[in-house]
């Protein structure tokens, strides 16, 4: 039963299994285990980034396609929910309409970009997505009457997901039974289902063909698979799932803005998470996203402590400044592409 649930793609390593189970339990019970505003927020971010990173891994790790427009699709979903909620009024129907419209638009845009660039040369795709994504980011910040510009949009979500709503009296294990709890579980369950869905996709015949194309597209074409069709389909699927993750992120934050959804920084974060976690393994996304978000929230404090401890020396404090952690991540990123391209998961599986 459990094996069917993960589509036969078990972690295949006792340590990895233990880590994944620990992450699953922590996320599933986060409001009870870590009942603080900040820690629940971190848990929700981890859930959403797992889905986002896994959808990117579907493209990069399984399809072998580099895209720099993943935040654009993420943002489309987020803005879809925000616009629908602020135009149609708060309600579950507007959340649904917004997410579906965002995902549909993302898939359509991915189809157009994919047909344009993947048809000619897969390498064009990376450059074209970079150009299109930055154009969209500029456009979003310029069309301030529609998108709120740089300030972004704050919007109301249904009352049932707010802290004022009580679905039962009293407390569950010392946690208030309010809408905030419901919202967390909406995010968690949606992410869980989306992740299992992606695991299903990569272990289906479609996923196998994608991996064959990644390994040798010429041979895959020769066997009789239409390489372009498979690549475009993977792009569309990954874009739609990224948009759904964006919709969940918007619901969680009740806000969208260019900085939280569209910026190049997030794109780089996603890249780092995929590569450090392990490309071509869905579980790599889980490990990468969890480690990265935790590090983002807590490790910076450690780094600033290290910076203070060497403050007497010249130059070193600048290098160890908490704002410079991207420098060290970049170095780690390069080293991991060279020395263990299968990331943490690949290492644990002993490949």
């Amino acid at each position: 039963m459990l094996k069917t649930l993960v589509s036969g793609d078990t972690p295949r390593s006792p340590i990895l299994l233990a880590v994944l189970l620990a992450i699953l339990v922590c996320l599933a019970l986060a409001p009870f285990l870590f009942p603080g505003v900040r820690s629940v927020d971190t848990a929700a971010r981890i859930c959403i980034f797992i889905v986002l990173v896994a959808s990117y891994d579907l493209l990069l790790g399984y399809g072998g396609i580099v895209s720099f427009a993943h935040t654009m699709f993420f943002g489309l979903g987020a803005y879809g929910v925000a616009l629908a909620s602020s135009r149609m009024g708060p309600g579950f129907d507007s959340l649904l309409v917004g997410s579906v419209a965002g995902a549909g638009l993302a898939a359509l845009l991915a189809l157009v970009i994919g047909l344009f660039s993947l048809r000619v040369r897969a390498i064009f795709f990376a450059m074209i997505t970079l150009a299109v994504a930055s154009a969209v980011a500029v456009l979003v910040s310029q069309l301030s009457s529609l998108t709120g510009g740089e300030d972004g949009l704050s919007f109301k979500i249904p009352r049932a997901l707010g802290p004022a709503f009580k679905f039962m009296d009293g407390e569950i294990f010392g946690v208030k039974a309010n809408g905030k709890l419901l919202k967390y579980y909406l995010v968690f369950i949606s992410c869980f289902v989306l992740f299992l869905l992606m695991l299903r996709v990569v272990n289906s015949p479609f996923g196998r063909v994608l991996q064959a194309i990644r390994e040798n597209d010429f041979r895959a074409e020769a066997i009789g698979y239409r390489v372009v069709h498979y690549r475009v389909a993977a792009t569309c699927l990954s874009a739609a799932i990224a948009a759904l993750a964006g919709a969940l992120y918007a619901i969680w934050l009740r806000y969208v803005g260019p900085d939280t959804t569209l910026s190049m920084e997030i794109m780089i974060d996603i890249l780092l998470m995929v590569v450090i976690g392990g490309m071509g393994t869905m579980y790599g996304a889980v490990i990468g996203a969890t480690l990265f978000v935790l590090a983002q929230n807590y490790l910076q404090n450690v780094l600033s402590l290290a910076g203070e401890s060497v403050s007497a020396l010249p130059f070193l404090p600048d290098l160890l400044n908490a704002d410079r952690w991207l420098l060290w991540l970049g170095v780690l990123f390069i080293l991991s592409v060279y020395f263990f391209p299968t990331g943490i998961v690949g290492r644990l599986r002993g490949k």
Partner: protein
Amino acid sequence: MSAAPKHAPTMAQMSLAERVAPYAPILLVVGLVIAGFVAIPATSSWLTLTVSGLAMGMMIFIMASGLTLVFGLMDVINFGHGAFVSVGAFVGVSFLLLLEHMTGAPNLLWNLTALMVTIVGAMAATGLMGYAFERVIVKPVYGHHLKQILVTMGGLIVVEQLIIVLWGPEEIYITRPEALKGAITFAGAALEKYRLVAVGIGLVVFLAMRYTLRRTKIGLIVRAGVENGEMVQALGYNLRMVFIGVFVAGSALAGLGGVLWGLYQEVITAHMGNQTMILVFIVVIIGGLGSVEGCFIGALMVGLLQNYVAFLEPKAALISNIALMVAILMWRPMGMIPVVKAK
């Protein structure tokens, strides 16, 4: 046995369309300038915009040329090329600040000398950095596109952060050398002096590069390497060495582009390289990956179109470049001047 087909040679001249086809890209630039003339009501503003479009195009060309040659020669795609642009600009600013007594004086000769020293300094720095980048970051991933993209992107992140460590996180404002400030008036149009200088430098670089590629032995080897690398190696040339040379030259040119771009914008940030890379990639794609002429024509088109559209409809400026790219890829999917590989 059937009769052999009749031998009927035709001596017809090629149709006009066939004869024009090789010149179509350059005619497109001319057409764009004429279209701009028709669309923009005042001739003086058209002239101003054309000059600034040309200046912008030249600067983008300087930055893009190295990237396209590196790709053509060794099939290496460098997403970290923007790092050289940023480093060039920052090193350039440091030189300009050092030579403040020269740039501040209202003396054209002194100003140009200072500018030249700055450019040479920045190009030397980015050339050296290009050598290190090639050895440390690019070399281990030859022949592997996916890893190249990832690793060079990682290199870009690291270099951007190092710039912030060395020069601080704030953006730096630059003042142009005294004699290059302001504008001259020509036929009622105000032409910024600096833009004219940028057009001049761009033209010199393009002509020098064309001369090197077309008239010298090393250029011959580079062109042959782009077309058929294996054959060049079989003839006894060390293509790796040539490639390193091209990579260093391309990095130095990106540094020059960074200095010019920084002086053009009058403000520099660590991320400026990555921002200009968006235009550079568009140019490289529409020109045809690996083609220097295509890159030049593409850069001029992007620069001109961006300036015309920004004047007519400011919000559509960036979108216009994407639209241009889409249109050109529909017309010629491999870019305007596709590089024919003998493989």
